[in-house]
């Protein structure tokens, strides 16, 4: 009786010892990397819990709207995820979000998910700015484009 109690306690301690570091890793450090723009901000475009649970659905909706219907400037944008969450190394170079321990890889590696996003999408912020630089946003009017508008096309 006594020995089984001890073994149960030991087992619980052992389990807790194993689980705690894993939970800490996934719970705190892994979703924002140091030296990224995101590390200096209070929250993501939506509450962290929501983003962590649903980011794949948000991005999937946005991608179809953008590719098929040409709707840009949506709230959820993969290029902006990367602009904000890619960390920078000591020389200021952006580190790929899919390299070991970085923003995307850390969680996806932990849960053994292999998203196909980065077969096509770049994994570092674009040198000349990301989605923002394309004027995708509804405040695009503030961008000054040194180009002609064809007659009859009003920019709204």
């Amino acid at each position: 009786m006594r020995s089984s109690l001890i073994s149960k306690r030991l087992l619980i301690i052992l389990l807790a010892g194993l689980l705690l570091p894993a939970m800490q890793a996934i719970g705190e450090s892994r979703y924002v990397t140091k030296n990224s723009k995101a590390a200096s901000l209070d929250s993501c475009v939506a509450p962290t819990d929501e983003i962590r649970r649903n980011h794949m659905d948000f991005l999937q909706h946005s991608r179809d709207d953008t590719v098929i219907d040409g709707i840009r400037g949506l709230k959820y944008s993969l290029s902006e995820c990367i602009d904000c969450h890619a960390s920078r190394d000591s020389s200021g170079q952006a580190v790929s979000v899919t390299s070991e321990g970085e923003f995307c890889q850390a969680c996806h590696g932990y849960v053994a998910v292999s998203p196909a996003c980065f077969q096509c999408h770049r994994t570092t912020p674009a040198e000349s700015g990301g989605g923002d630089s394309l004027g995708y946003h509804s405040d695009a009017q503030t961008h000054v484009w040194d180009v002609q508008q064809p007659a009859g096309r009003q920019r709204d």
Partner: protein
Amino acid sequence: MSNKSDQPSVDRRQFIGGTVAAAGALTLAPGVILHAASEKGKAPSGASGNHRWGMLIDANKCAEGCSACVEACNNEHGLTGFDRPATDAVWIRPVKLKDKQTGHVNRLVMMCQHCEHPPCVDVCPTNASFKRIDGVVLVDRHRCIGCRYCMMACPYKARSFVHEALTDQSVNAPRGKGCVESCTLCVHRIDAGVMQTACQEACDKEGHSAILFGDLKDPNSEISRVLKSRNSVQIRADLELNTGVRYLNL
């Protein structure tokens, strides 16, 4: 409530419902989300059927030895080659046409002709090849399985296949191994309200002005006025594809 999704029910995750609604999207049912508006309260408009984007290329003005448009296109869309001309992606390419009887040589640029009735869309088994409502023919790489039927079907040989894994793509044109691709008529610029393609910009800069981009549905646009006043041709007009790219002096 019938629920075929593997998402947790709204009851269990009511806090999400509140936050999603606050974020401008509406949760109807688990896994079903309506996007209401962009974060700044202005609904993004997207492509419109009131336009049909097209191009007019003047073969007389296309200068011998010039490849400014090709370089601009490669630069704009991050098309990097591997020094393997047989398989490297080409979205726009100069072509020489020689009349064997007279020896007269025409030079023009060939790219996706953005057909009204695109054969690539007809043959695509996954609906990855599609025509946007404003007439731009595109490949949805999220759906493309790389079968290359569209490449076989295209009478203009306008499409390329990405054979190798890529990194550091342009944000203008995410692209990767195993997908077919072609000229997008610079949709990222159209959607941003910039009514000039990269190739036209480069051609104008070189002083040739052989490429004119514009709205074929707008009778007052420059391209429509030129098309009305001058005799342009479609390449392989016999196929009755009603191409969006037309040629002058051919």
